[in-house]
């Protein structure tokens, strides 16, 4: 198991967002967490990455207890993440965005006197190409289209060479075409690098096409999990999704 979540609980001012969730992710698995809005998906992610402290429960990553570690230490253990609302360095170029993550990963962030521009050009370029932004290296990232910014964010996460990648709604706000391209990209990179992938998504087509295992979160609780077929035929899941009108 690469990640063990044991009975974690998180409440905000009395509202229980995550209510005793336990789950385990195997190395190399592609898993997704689905659930209606407000089910607690993003909160669960924030608990796993250390952005929020859990009220109860335990989190173990690669055999290390990460329950009380700050995000930067969890990241350094080999966890990468993208955020639901795009999270890049908007006034820096695409190259600089990725290079910053490479610098940290390869332990050069405490260098005070050498020109930064000369560091890890090839490594950075390789990642830029991998996420399909080859022509945009010198573009100021804040001026990229929304879809490209999401791709850049994926690149930032990959630059740390994570073993476990958490993607929070990687295709949120994308057109059907962009969604298709992005998921293809994510799937290809995940397989190439043998990554473990955990993602949330509201687009059911995406979820069922790529996931090996699906977990269903509802009102802060895990109510079902299994292969896409099992989840599709689960009566509780059907009730939730049929009951929810969009």
């Amino acid at each position, binding site marked *: 198991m690469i990640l063990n979540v044991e009975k974690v609980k998180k409440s905000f001012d009395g509202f229980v967002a995550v209510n005793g969730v336990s789950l385990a992710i195997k190395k190399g698995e592609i898993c997704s967490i689905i659930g209606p809005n407000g089910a607690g998906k993003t909160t669960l992610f924030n608990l796993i990455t250390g952005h929020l402290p859990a009220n109860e429960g335990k989190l173990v990553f690669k055999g290390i207890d990460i329950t009380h570690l700050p*995000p930067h230490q969890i*990241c350094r253990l080999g966890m990468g993440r993208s955020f639901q609302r795009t999270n890049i360095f908007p*006034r*820096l170029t695409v190259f600089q965005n990725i290079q910053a993550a490479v610098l940290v990963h390869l332990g050069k962030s405490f260098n*005070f006197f050498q020109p930064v521009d000369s560091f890890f050009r090839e490594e950075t370029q390789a990642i830029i190409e991998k996420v399909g932004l080859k022509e945009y290296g010198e573009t*100021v990232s804040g001026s990229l289209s929304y879809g490209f910014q999401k791709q850049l964010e994926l690149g930032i996460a990959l630059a740390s060479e994570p073993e476990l990648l958490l993607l929070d709604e990687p295709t949120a706000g994308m057109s059907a075409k962009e969604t298709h391209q992005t998921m293809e990209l994510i799937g290809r990179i995940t397989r190439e690098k043998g990554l473990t992938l955990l993602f949330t998504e509201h687009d059911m087509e995406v979820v069922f096409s790529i996931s090996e295992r699906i977990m269903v979160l509802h009102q802060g609780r895990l109510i079902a999990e299994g292969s896409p077929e099992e989840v599709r035929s689960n009566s509780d899941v059907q009730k939730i999704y049929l009951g929810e009108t969009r």
Partner: protein
Amino acid sequence: MMLKPNWFLILLILLLALLPLSESRFYIFLGTDILIMGLFAVSLNLLLGYTGLVSFGQAAYFGIGAYTCALLMKKAAVVFPVAFVAAAFMGMIGALIIGFFCIRLTKIYFSMLTLAFSQIVWAIVFKWNSLTGGDTGLIGINFPKYLDSSTRFYYFTLAVVVISFYFLRKVVDSPFGRILATIRENPERTEFIGINVKRFQLIAFMVSGFFAGISGALFGIFNHSLFPDLLYWPMSAEVLIMSILGGMYSFFGPVVGAAVILYLRMLVTSYTQYWPLIMGTILALLLFFFPGGIVGFLKSQRPFAGGKR
């Protein structure tokens, strides 16, 4: 790309080195003042423009530097070079202590706390009569003979400021400096590329305090006397205005801001006593019409021309 600004810089330094040949006391005085305040403003801008920390208490490290240098010489008979270096390190230590608490807060609360701490330092200097002379100030500091002409002191200041800028420029162009920029852009994301954001912010504070201390020590010699006023909050506000006016996303922007404000003030106060009114008007106009001002900073989501500088 690298050569062009370098030639420009060399030319500028040469011009500055030739300034005393004008034999104008006015320009030597103004030049010294601009160099000192320019260094002070650039030290602030390491926090403001590079790390995204709106520090409202920069006068504290400036004042600590000024008083350290002067007091060591006057009360402890320490030789000038040692006292001068000590001023820089005391500025750094002051920034370490104040920064340690301030980085625990964010945004407006952070700024208010930096202000609160600088006012505490001011109050200590103001009330500690036996050491600092309190409100009457510290007068008659015996600075070394070899700096006792305005031309010599100008050259000394020029050398110190150029060397300081050289180091600061290296730092902001280094990987460390780039990480500071990512913190400015997005601290949350920076945390999750594996950076201990608070530690980097604290180091930025220390570097900033170090050079603010140097500029303060220079200012003390320049004035031949010290008053608690140079730690009072309008001093912090003034250097903040210099940085913002000149452009906080550019390395030399704050120096330009210092030059404009000091020159205008000298010009205007010889005609009218309404300098604050004119300064306020200029500030308001510049903030509206120049995108590098406060408005540009708050709207940092919008793409900015050139990611580099």
